[in-house]
């Protein structure tokens, strides 16, 4: 095939969008848009990195911080949420062998997350609304620095994403609980109890011989437990958004509300409690679940210590509700016992739960050696390494002694946040994408394995390298969320910039590979209405 043919119709013309079911289209839409938003996040990241080497004259500080506000939110909601939603809306019915409860609602989730992300991104771009994602009170309502209209549009965008998220949550729980026509009737309540882990006493304390079988498989349980945190987080963010909006609407109508009515420390506790449902909740739970699923699919074997893995997922859910104080260790008014119990000790549990997931996955893989080094396996190992590096980095900073000299430095955002997100989470998501690609595309062939290899190496070296150099800068006192004008930390920022460029190259290699695999026509075809009218996940053989 000529280059032009491949560009238009994909590798060997194998990808036929007309042959896709509505479910395949839904999942692919989420994944493609999620990947594009990842690209936007990486480009924004690189702009910030260049700015940290040498403040760019065309970008003023207001704009710089607006980029810093949009960047993580586009990354987390626009990219990670989209990819996760697409994958799980497909996988839950796939693993449970029944159709998704509502494809229509799934498409609404897709539209709302995409439009919401574009809305808050656009608002930050135009109005430079930039309270950063931690929104410490009363900063989001400080209208001497920000325009209330820009802020209101920003919050509207976040609200749209949250509505899309709630639709996702409903769809997942309904799919787990409902009995489709023609299937044997199941108790929805029992299914949900098993999925979320609230029948745990049953599986631990009963004798082996008397134990009832789990109603849902382990990966579905992981998805359900992560979805509980997704739901709680959506509630917190929506509530917070409404609170800020009240102040904005009042400002737009010329009234200034008393912002001391909201206690800044209480708000900070509230906000971090909610935010940790993402960082220490759904991310860790979804990731562990994806590791388990991939390990089982790659090896074709049962998971090692499956019962303990199930229990650990449940423990992680509870832990995620109780660790928020590790973000408030440098807040002197925060009670000391909360800093020690929630901030240090319960947080240390994450070493256990994530360590278990790490080992269980590795032992399961080992039980089937020799394995072929496929793309999913490669990226899975990368994802495991990412968390192997980032979780201990987090435990170190969640320490009363060390937090005093690490808080708000580049250490936090480098070896911990970016290594967890870029190497741990993103590589796990890529493993799932490479695995699902042939299933979702009815056997389309990857255009180039060489590009996939480059994608892997450039991403892992770039991700770990960037984290390391940011960490070194942090150790030398470089703060996050600020601007240095005299090249104080230039050596580290240039090295981190080179690694960032590698990450960006990795992304473009992947994007090019995807375009050449599906073809431009194929990619457009993903977004047109499905020709097949079926609720089935995959096209049925004639």
């Amino acid at each position, binding site marked *: 095939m000529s280059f032009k043919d491949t560009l238009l119709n994909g590798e060997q013309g194998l990808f036929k969008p007309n042959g896709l079911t509505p479910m395949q289209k839904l999942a692919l839409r989420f994944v493609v848009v999620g990947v594009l938003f990842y690209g936007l996040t990486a480009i924004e990241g690189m702009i910030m990195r260049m700015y940290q080497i040498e403040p760019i004259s065309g970008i003023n*500080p*207001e704009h*710089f911080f607006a980029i810093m506000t949009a960047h993580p939110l586009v990354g987390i909601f626009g990219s990670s949420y989209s990819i996760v939603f697409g994958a799980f809306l497909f996988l839950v019915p796939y693993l449970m062998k029944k159709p998704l409860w509502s494809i229509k609602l799934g498409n609404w989730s897709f539209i709302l997350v995409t439009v919401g992300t574009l809305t808050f991104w656009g608002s930050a771009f135009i109005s430079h609304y*930039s309270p950063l994602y*931690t929104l*410490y*009170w*009363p*900063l989001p309502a*400080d209208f001497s*620095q920000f325009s209330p209209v820009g802020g209101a549009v920003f919050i509207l965008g976040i609200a749209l994403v949250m509505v899309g998220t709630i639709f996702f949550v409903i769809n997942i729980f309904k799919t787990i609980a409902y009995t489709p026509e023609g299937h044997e009737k199941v108790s929805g309540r029992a299914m949900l109890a098993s999925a979320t882990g609230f029948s745990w006493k049953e599986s631990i304390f009963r004798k082996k011989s008397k134990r009832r079988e789990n109603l849902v498989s382990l990966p579905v349980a992981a998805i359900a437990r992560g979805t509980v945190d997704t739901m709680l987080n959506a509630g917190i963010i929506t509530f917070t958004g409404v609170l800020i909006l009240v102040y904005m609407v009042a400002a737009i109508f010329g009234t200034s509300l008393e912002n*001391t009515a909201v206690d*800044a420390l209480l708000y*900070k506790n509230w906000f971090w409690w909610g935010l940790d449902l993402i960082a220490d909740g759904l991310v860790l739970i979804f990731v562990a679940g994806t590791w388990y699923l991939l390990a089982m699919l790659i090896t074709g074997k049962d998971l090692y*210590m499956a019962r303990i893995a199930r229990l650990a997922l449940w423990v992680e859910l509870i832990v995620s509700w109780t660790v928020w104080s590790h973000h408030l260790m*440098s*807040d*002197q*008014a925060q009670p000391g016992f909360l800093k020690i119990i929630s901030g*240090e000790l319960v947080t*240390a549990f994450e070493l*256990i739960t994530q*360590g*278990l997931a790490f*080992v269980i996955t*590795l*032992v399961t893989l*080992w*039980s089937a*050696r*020799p*394995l*072929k*080094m496929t793309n999913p*396996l490669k990226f899975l190992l990368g994802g*495991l*390494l990412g968390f*192997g*590096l980032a979780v*201990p980095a987090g*435990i*170190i900073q969640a*320490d*009363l*002694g*060390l937090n*005093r*000299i690490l*808080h*708000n430095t580049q250490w936090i955002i480098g070896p911990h946040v970016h290594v967890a997100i870029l190497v741990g989470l993103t590589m796990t998501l890529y493993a799932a994408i490479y695995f699902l690609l042939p299933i979702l595309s009815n056997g389309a062939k990857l255009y180039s394995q060489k590009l996939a290899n480059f994608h892997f190496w450039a991403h892992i070296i770039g991700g*770990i390298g960037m984290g390391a150099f940011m960490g070194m800068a942090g*150790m*030398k*006192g*470089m*703060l996050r*969320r*600020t*601007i240095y004008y005299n090249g104080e*930390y230039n050596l580290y920022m240039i090295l981190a910039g080179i690694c960032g460029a590698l990450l960006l190259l990795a992304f473009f290699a992947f994007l090019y590979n995807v375009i050449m695999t599906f073809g431009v026509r194929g990619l457009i075809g993903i977004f047109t209405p499905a020709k097949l009218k079926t609720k089935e996940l995959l096209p049925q053989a004639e």
Partner: protein
Amino acid sequence: MVDSTLVLNGQTIAYTIYAIVIILLMAWFGYKVTTEGKASVIKAKLFYAFVIFLAVLGVSLHLATNATIPWVSMDLNRANITPDKVIEISVADHQFKLPDDKLVVKKGEIVVFDVTSEDLTYGFGIFRKDGSMVCQMQVVPGHKNDLMWKFEKSGIYTIRSTEYSGPKGHKMVLSDVLEVKE
């Protein structure tokens, strides 16, 4: 009290060694899992021992730092310790207001920085000449923000906000305003 540079160096060495080991371990695993060999699983006993090891490791890190990093217990007990000096600082409209143009403390004396915010959430950090951080705390409006510290080295230090408080916040730097005398 040990200087915070020593703690930072110790942490850097420990984490770097750990990072190298885990990277090598994963590389070895990736190689081995794809080559011929015995496919086995580890014994349950070993697995549970690993769980216990993780629990001990997580908790002992905090116990170890609690015993060796002196500012931890001083911070937790600061209500019961009488300081040698209290420096009251207020912050409003992205400006620190110091009691004097230059703050002077003596090496080895216990000093409390009592910082009050009149509007936003800020940070309060003390930095050495080479840019490295001595210590920091958050400055939350409506609450008492008091950092107790004992300087081990004489020298000139800079105060800087360590928390984002909007685009204006990055200019909150007071260079060389704190002197620690022998």
